[in-house]
């Protein structure tokens, strides 16, 4: 096999960058900011090179780089991507520079450590999407917890300690279950293949043969870990706290990328390693997903804090993604993949916008605002645009994802009932209610608070951050083919893999 180092460069760039940040003098904030931004832009450029080298026709893992790492355990360093991981990698490298840039004004304390954390976090996230060895995956998965813990705990709001500990314990609990399962799989490999291995591609060939009841346990060990990260109802309560307390950049990365690791994990590991169990528990999990869609939307509706509202809306949106994955049809899984990206863009934009106005007024209560359309017209348009994308207006990105998920799950053979879709589709009504209601109370009406007078509209650097996101929101809405070309072969491959073990019409 020809070795391709591009993914290794991709991982090294932010990692080396983060280490180098530590050598800057802490007071030299401007240089640190520029350095962080440039490193993240270089990473983005490398990811684009990876995109250009990627063969979209094939659903196989590509750009693989592999060498033995821990010889005694036969643990390898294996990185490689298919279309789905590629798309998520691009999302990560795209959002990181934008968020870094967005913090230039808002992060005033310890810029050096913050930049270090962000770049370190990026390494972890990219590693999660690129790893093809479970051991390596687990290390990245855990490694990215630590900077996130600090980002919330150090640069967060008033209750940041409670929120960060809750975040840490929740996710740690899940990770430990997964670790046990990984070890089990590896030792099982030694009895099946004669050698201990954590290589994903090899494991995916033998793990479907595991006795069903044992497979079910392993499935849940992985699944719970991912479901916490998604977060799937009822494992979601860390999310609102983490989001509200996190600084804007933290929220954007959290919503934009971290949550996707959960859904990515389900798609990559649960569905592929344990196809029978995935099919077996699909109805049960889909029920939770549908509850999450409605529950998240209803609770979002009655929030008084803008950020918390957006946080709960994530519970609702990610419910769609999980439903689509377990419906196991071409349309629904494709929809879920694109919806991961959509959520990153739309919710990312919403968090940025809430952050922008918070920086000006230090208020997030919906009741404080009212009538800002007159004062900050550009901001109001941007907020409307992001809201509409989140609501799933056709022509923008959100529609593509939701529509495909619902269309696919409606005819899903695995779920085999209309009711999932009927309840899930009611989420489109509630989404309109909570977002437009918030919009109405914040933006419309007469100016409510005299202290709002003099509110500044979007600055040019804020526009610079939003415009790239908005471009992709329209791009995906109007011409999603660019993105489906990347992922369709990979989705097809996963579904045909499942159909080898379970008679599946997709």
């Amino acid at each position, binding site marked *: 096999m020809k070795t391709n180092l591009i993914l290794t460069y991709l991982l090294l760039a932010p990692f080396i960058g983060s280490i180098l940040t530590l050598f800057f003098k802490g007071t030299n904030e401007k240089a640190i900011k520029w350095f962080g931004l440039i490193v993240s832009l270089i990473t983005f450029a490398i990811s684009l090179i990876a995109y250009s080298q990627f063969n979209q026709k094939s659903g196989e893992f590509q750009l693989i780089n592999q060498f033995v790492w821990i010889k005694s355990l036969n643990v390898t360093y294996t990185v490689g991507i298919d279309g789905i991981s590629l798309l998520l990698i691009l999302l990560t490298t795209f959002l990181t520079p934008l968020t870094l840039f967005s913090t230039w004004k808002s992060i005033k304390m310890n810029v050096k450590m913050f930049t270090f954390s962000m770049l370190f976090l990026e390494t972890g996230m990219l590693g999660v999407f690129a790893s093809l060895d479970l051991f390596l995956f687990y290390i990245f998965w855990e490694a990215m917890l630590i900077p996130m813990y600090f980002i919330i705990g150090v640069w967060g709001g008033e209750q940041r300690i409670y929120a960060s500990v*809750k975040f840490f*314990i*929740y996710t740690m609990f899940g990770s430990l279950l997964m670790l046990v399962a990984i070890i089990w799989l590896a*030792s099982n490999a030694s*009895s099946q293949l004669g050698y201990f291995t954590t290589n994903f591609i090899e494991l995916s060939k033998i793990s479907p043969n595991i006795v069903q009841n044992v497979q079910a346990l392993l499935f849940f060990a992985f699944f719970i870990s991912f479901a916490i990260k998604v977060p799937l109802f*009822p494992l*979601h*309560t*860390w999310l*609102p706290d983490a989001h509200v307390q996190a600084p804007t950049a933290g929220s954007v990365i959290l919503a934009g990328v971290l949550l996707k690791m959960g859904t990515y994990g389900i798609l990559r590991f649960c569905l592929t390693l344990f196809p029978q169990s995935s099919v077996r528990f699909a109805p049960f999990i889909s029920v939770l997903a549908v509850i999450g869609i409605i*529950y998240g939307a*209803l*609770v979002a*509706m*009655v*929030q008084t804090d803008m950020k918390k509202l957006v946080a709960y809306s994530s519970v609702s949106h990610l419910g769609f993604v999980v439903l689509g994955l377990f419906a196991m*049809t*071409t*349309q629904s899984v*494709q929809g879920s993949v694109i919806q991961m990206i959509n959520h990153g863009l739309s919710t990312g934009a919403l968090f940025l916008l809430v952050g922008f106005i918070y920086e000006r007024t230090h208020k997030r209560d919906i009741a404080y605002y009212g*009538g800002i*359309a*007159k004062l900050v017209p550009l901001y109001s348009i941007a907020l409307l645009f992001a809201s*509409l994308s989140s609501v799933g*207006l*056709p*022509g923008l990105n959100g*529609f*593509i994802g939701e*529509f*495909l998920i*619902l*269309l696919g799950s*409606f*005819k899903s053979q695995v779920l085999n009932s*209309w009711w999932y*879709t*009927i309840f899930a*589709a*009611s989420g*489109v*009504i509630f989404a*309109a*209610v909570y977002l*437009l*209601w918030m919009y*109405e109370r914040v*933006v*419309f*009406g*007469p*100016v409510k608070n005299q202290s709002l007078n003099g509110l500044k509209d979007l600055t040019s650097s804020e526009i610079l951050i939003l415009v790239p996101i908005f471009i992709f929101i329209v791009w995906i809405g*109007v*011409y*999603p*083919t660019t993105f*489906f070309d990347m992922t*369709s072969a990979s989705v097809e491959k996963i579904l045909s893999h499942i159909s080898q073990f379970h008679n599946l019409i*997709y």
Partner: protein
Amino acid sequence: MVNYIYLTVLFPLAGFLINGIFGNRIKNEKIIGIIGSGAVGLSFLVSLFSFFQLLGMPAEERSVIVNLFSWLNIGALHINFGYLVDPLSIVMSLIVTGVGFLIHVYAIGYMHGDKGFFRFFAYLNLFIFAMMNLILGDNFVVLFLGWEGVGLCSYLLIGFWYDRKFEKGTVSQAAKKAFVVNRIGDFGFLLGMFLIFMTFDSLNFQDVFAKAASFPVSETTFSFIALFLFIGATGKSAQIPLFVWLPDAMAGPTPVSALIHAATMVTAGVYMVSRTAIIFASAPVIMTVVAVVGLLTAFFAASMGLVQNDIKKVLAYSTVSQLGYMFLAAGVGAFSASIFHVMTHAFFKALLFLGAGSVIHSMHEEQNIQHYGNLKKYMPRTYITFLLAALAISGFPGFSGFFSKDEILWNAFAKGNFVFWLIGALTAVMTAFYMFRLVSLTFFGKERFGHEHHPHESPAVMTVPLMILGVLSVIGGYIGIPAIFSGENGNKFEEFLKPVYENAERKMVTYGTHTHFEEILLMALSVAFALTAIYFAYVIYTRRQEIAEKTSAKFKGLYTVLFNKYYIDEIYEASVVKPIQTVSEKFLWKIADNKIIDGVVNGTGILIEKSSNVIRKLQTGIAQFYAVVMMVGIAVVLFWIILSL
């Protein structure tokens, strides 16, 4: 020109982008207005040329698909940005761009001096863009893109004066209500699409309709599809039970009410039912539902219109009622009659709203008809054109509304039954009555406004569109003269649309024939009813107002119920909106999330803390102890591995 039909979509899009992005800097109202209306005017010309080109083709070839690019291509799903030009879509696009153009021009005068002038025209063009997608889309998804798009524009335009009060609430609440209620309908439409895709493996009109005509699909499936689609139609076209948003939509500027909430957008549901005629025709039970819902909506909305005092409110209920007629027609299988009424209604209802706008404009935003009177003296052009429109909607013989309404009533009888006709005719009586109550209170009788008002005729930019629509309201019906009058020429309009409904017609049961005598008799009856109603309304509200007062005093209960729109809003609020809000806040959020789930999580945390206090005692700090534990541990693991070998 047919092959360039996408220009009708692109011109308004360009207008939206230009005015939306640069309007703030252009500042000149004239330029903005010309860009806005010019874009729609160009679209109209393209539609017109396409129409003539279509006419020149043999009837069976009048169906052209123009594909732009592939939109969604996943598995069996192939959706293009594609437009379908056929008699139905071309008729609709002529109506939308034609009436739309006149309303754009009118708005230049009406919105003069408004701070949001450029924003207004940008939104209007965006609306036309969305509406054209809705009409021309050659598949359900593009139709849905337009469907949601017009909903968005409706939201933006109802909420255009977002800082104003409206009745008990605010303008923006009215806007949100419109969007949300529409979304409830869209939910049904989505499910309809999903079931269509599941059944026919396609969402393209041609595939689906061809398969619907030939595939052995059960009537139950067809019924579900038709029902889901019809739920969508009730939202967009303001039918029972989702009509509540339309009266509140009057919070928007009057040209918006004319364009979106009377002439075009609200007829989208009728268009959709007509487009999917083959599916409805295959579901007779749902056809009856459509007819009955339409009939009841027509009747109840008209009854509410009888007592309203806000000029726009009367017209709003009238719109709901007329839309009901269109569904009645579709429900009995007279699809082309429903589209015919869409067209004539677009003429006279747009005219009524624009006329009302002209009145409101000159009366400085006063909308209560009890505070008008004798305005014919001050605004002769508005008066004459308004009168023509009122005669048209009342079914005055020879006017456009007469032909379309008569065709609906006749079909209600011929393809439905006598009760349908009777309720329809009673509705027509109420229509004539409330319209002439409105005309009399506004233009005739004594002046009931204070001296601070100086009513005046509107400028030509507003009255010329009124006059054009006036002419259309009068003569617009002649292209659809029923066969009994036009002899062997037949009904031209129906003839033109016929190919669209061919398959649907074949599916429907043919009824026994009726005689010409019956047709003439029923027509004469409904005309007599309407004329009587016009006469009484005129007499009562110009000379004998005490009759009206006495009657309303006598039937106080009924009057209050009608005036408060049967308390439907209050019922929805108490039975749906409040419970959902309360449960979400008080239970889901504050108890389920914060107490139960978090309680378990925090409880686990406390438990771990407690137990680790115990475990801590094991951490003795003596290295030997650790070594022993480690050894034991390794032994256990080894033992386990040996066992599993």
